[in-house]
């Protein structure tokens, strides 16, 4: 103890601080390695056709559960396209809805709103961003899902699909609406950040040329921060991909690929995503090896996509430095 009380030498201090930060790095890299090792068996058996469509995913998972500890090679057979498709569908729709909403909102906050409204809006964005996903899910499952099920789903749609899937209200549309609301504040915050960093002189220059405020925003400000908007979209996509709890609560939790050919009923069809599948089958983690490996494969896929997205976000933001706009 007395050695610790003495003033530390710089060398020792650096060693301690460096060790702590390398430990942080090691934990994170260990995470990637661990998840990859656990996911390996299922990829070894299925290869990249893990991602392909084929057969009923629900049945495949059932047969994994029935083989206990020593699984035969056949138990690993899985074609996970429905959940990959579900993830892409929900994320794509939510991001497509959130992008215009967030850009308009950010422009409103930074450029258009009166100071008092702006102050309120900043609080609103911050609060919306910190609402826990389980509360979104709770509101979804107790308020939106019954509403959609009772008032929006018509009985004609219900009967036309009764042999394939049950329309309870839990499904695509509720999940997409909630996910949009969850990722919009993140995009707004990032876009606001870039907007405030645009030099005032640029706006003034545009104003001096006689265009109105909105023209100036469109021609100068938004064009300057385009990379930041793309980067914000990429980050929001990563956030949307990984949302597990809310989706698991409101998406109906059925292995089903919603079919656009069903018309309006498409919006009400239930589905699962990669992340919500892990939540739904969390009891199987550490149990039957085939299922365990499949769930870790879902996690690895998420980790990989998020990694690719964050690299993409970094690369997209590079041109911003050219303008010396912080992003």
């Amino acid at each position: 103890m007395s050695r610790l009380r003495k003033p530390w030498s710089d060398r020792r201090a650096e060693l301690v601080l460096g060790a702590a930060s390398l430990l942080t790095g090691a934990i994170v890299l260990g995470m990637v390695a661990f998840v990859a090792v656990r996911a390996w068996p299922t990829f070894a058996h299925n290869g990249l056709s893990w991602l392909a469509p084929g057969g009923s995913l629900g049945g495949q998972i059932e047969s994994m559960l029935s083989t206990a500890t020593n699984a035969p090679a056949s138990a690993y057979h899985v074609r996970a396209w429905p959940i990959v498709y579900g993830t892409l569908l929900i994320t794509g729709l939510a991001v497509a809805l959130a992008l215009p909403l967030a850009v308009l909102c950010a422009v409103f906050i930074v450029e258009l709103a009166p100071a008092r409204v702006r102050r309120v809006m900043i609080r609103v964005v911050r609060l919306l961003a910190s609402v826990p996903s389980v509360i979104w899910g709770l509101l979804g499952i107790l308020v939106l899902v019954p509403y959609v099920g009772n008032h929006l789903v018509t009985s004609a749609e219900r009967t036309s699909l009764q042999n394939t899937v049950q329309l309870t209200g839990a499904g695509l549309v509720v999940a997409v609406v909630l996910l949009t609301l969850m990722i919009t504040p993140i995009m707004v915050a990032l876009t606001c950040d870039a907007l405030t960093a645009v030099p005032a002189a640029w706006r003034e220059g545009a104003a001096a040329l006689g265009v109105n405020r909105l023209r100036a925003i469109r021609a100068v400000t938004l064009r300057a921060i385009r990379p930041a908007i793309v980067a914000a979209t990429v980050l929001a996509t990563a956030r949307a991909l990984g949302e597990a709890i809310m989706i698991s609560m409101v998406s109906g939790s059925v292995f089903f690929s919603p079919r656009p050919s069903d018309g309006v009923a498409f919006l009400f069809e239930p589905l699962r995503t990669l992340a919500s599948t892990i939540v739904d089958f969390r009891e199987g983690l550490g149990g039957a090896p085939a299922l365990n490996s499949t769930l870790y494969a879902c996690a690895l896929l998420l980790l990989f996509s998020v990694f690719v997205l964050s690299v993409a976000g970094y690369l997209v933001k590079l041109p911003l430095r050219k303008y010396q706009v912080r992003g």
Partner: protein
Amino acid sequence: MSVFVPDPALSAVPPRRRGRGSSLRTWRWSDRLVLLAAWGAGLLLCAVTAAILLYMGYRGVQYLRPSLIFSHPQASKNQAGSGGFLDPLLGTALLTVIGIAIAAPLAICSALWIVEYGGGGRVRRALTRVVEASIEIVAGTPDIVIAVFGLAIFQLHLLAFASFVNEGGGVYGQSFLAAGAMMSLIALPPLFVATRDGLQAVPAHMREAAFALGKTRIATIRRVLLPSVRANVATGVTLGVSRIIADTAIVIVLLGDELRITPHAGSLPGLNVLRGTGSSLTSYVFDNSPAGEGAAPQKAYAAAVVLLLFVLALNLAVERIARRHAHAGGAVAVSGIV
């Protein structure tokens, strides 16, 4: 990674003065439509927030009773007999303490090392890059992935001391220790970013003055730098806490399905709780919603209202810290949300 929501007082945009002449009447229709859409988008977010707050407030008045906060959950068929959520509240508190206790030293040490020592030498710069990149990876990692990673390591026999073990020697990997350790990964990025940004904002002449007085680097850190970034660390901790209490995926994977805090039999007192299982407010809400087993919406609403109150309080806390230290810290970092 750092996200700055513009602070109204510090915003770079100067207040606009509009003369009477430049009215909207001179605008084109397309411009007027976009203006309308922007107002609409802003008001939509306000309306959603107001709707959530009002609806949850209404449910809170309806279902939240003080007795719920002070009673243990009970197994019961109907909602009248299923008790309150004392255990989930304690569980949330315990997870927060464990998570911050692990995350804070790691994050602050990493930030100090990267900002204060990371400059010189090629090897050191490369290592700095690696550490920063890995913190960015963990910031982007979905919580469910962190949860399954936690299960993977705590099911190792090497770490059997940290979680529930059955008679056959099977390691379950579920315990407060496991969940809290993974919570620290969630709290780490906002803490790190807040501290790093604070350190980078300390003007170089303060360090130089300390060195000129003969202080060593570490003494400068302890006497000059750490005191001046205290507000940033506080912001980081607050953001970390709000992420921990809001997280559900880690809890339901790593803390088991027991609503009551269930100490691990046969361990030392104190350690037995850490090795035991339990629940948090979020997992209580999840389990009592129709998505879980309980199907007790009244209890779920009541606990969700308490959770939302915590979130609101933490939001206010971040704002207060930022306002009080605006002269030192600059704009408010909301890095916790990304």
